[in-house]
């Protein structure tokens, strides 16, 4: 084994080391999953502030329950567990605040998020708005499967297990999400106007 190209350590090995008090292993785990998890939450709850809050809650919960995480289980490993906790945190948030309120709040944030990116030209900003609007318009259960697949790179079996639905249902939601997104992107003006 060359020191320049060390064999990558699996998440589960890092979890084991973290349990033994190895802080660097914990930081390595966070570095691996932090960015994608944050993006997943950002897309899911459509708010930077809430995404940050949920991100911290997720890691806090991970640490609190780390000793209970079964390293030998075939449930998708640490990453699937991490996304499951994050998804549950988002569901808790929706339940606590009322989904309608969050949607209303975050639809207004869409324009706020675009505003700082003034360096992009108008065409670019419009394209972003259309993309964002198309994703916003996906039904929640379809969007969740798409985001878990894209950001978490989770297997469909893991997604189905995480969401508590049959495999065929998860696959069906993914398929519908893709078709719906394609349709919305084909009619970007319509999608944008429907969101606003």
């Amino acid at each position: 084994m060359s020191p320049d190209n060390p064999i990558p350590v699996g998440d589960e090995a890092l979890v084991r080391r973290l349990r033994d008090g190895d802080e660097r292993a914990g930081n390595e785990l966070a570095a691996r999953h932090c960015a994608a998890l944050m993006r997943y939450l950002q897309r899911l709850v459509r708010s930077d502030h809430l995404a940050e809050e949920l991100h911290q809650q997720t890691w806090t919960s991970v640490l609190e329950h780390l000793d209970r995480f079964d390293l030998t289980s075939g449930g998708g490993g640490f990453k699937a567990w991490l996304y499951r906790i994050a998804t549950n945190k988002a569901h808790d948030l929706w339940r606590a605040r009322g989904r309608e309120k969050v949607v209303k709040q975050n639809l207004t944030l869409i324009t706020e998020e675009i505003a700082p990116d003034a360096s992009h030209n108008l065409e670019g900003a419009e394209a972003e708005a259309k993309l964002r609007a198309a994703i916003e318009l996906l039904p929640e259960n379809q969007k969740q499967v798409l985001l878990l697949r894209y950001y978490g790179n989770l297997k469909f079996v893991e997604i189905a297990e995480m969401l508590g639905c049959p495999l065929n249902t998860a696959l069906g939601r993914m398929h519908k999400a893709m078709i719906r997104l394609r349709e919305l992107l084909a009619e970007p003006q319509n999608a944008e106007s429907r969101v606003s």
Partner: protein
Amino acid sequence: MTSSLQNLENNEAILLMYLAGELPSQDRAEVEQMLASDAGLRAELEILRQTQQLAFDALETLDGATRPAVPRIVALSQISQLIHEWIDLRRQPTVTSAVVRQPTPWRRISLSAAAALLVGYYVWAVYHPPGRSINPRDIAYRSDELYPGDSDEFGALPQARELSSREKVAILTNSLDDSASDETSNLHVAEVAAVMPIDSSDQNVTGAP
């Protein structure tokens, strides 16, 4: 067909699993055979592949155009702090011997109190034999007996010398009251005062409520 493919309810599901690389090798081979022989299925797979790519590209484009909720370095710093605190907490010695709440030993307390009362009563009884009370005349008699020629009946007693006149009166009054049945010692304060001179400054104290 194997059971794995039979469980997938339509072509889209099978092709999505195929695209995701989640089919077992045997099922994968079977799907490839089907694709080789079915042009419609190949077209369907291609559309699915493009649609999936479109969706992923859309998300990638959006991520590239949107700032992350928190800069990665800030998010990592936050998590790193959580991990640090968590490890510190685990390193702290745990309270292995949890404070076991003992029941209040009421029985022991009662017995101890009873024993203390008994001892106290015994000690009191030794120094206060029943039926004996201080008679000023006895004191005076004994005083004369012990210290003949001393004009002061109480003054000759070493202990009595240290008492003030008001204390002497109080002692005598109490002892007389205690032995009220004894006619010989049933004296009044006035009689005591006659026996023992009282300082004028002390007079109001003896009568104080």
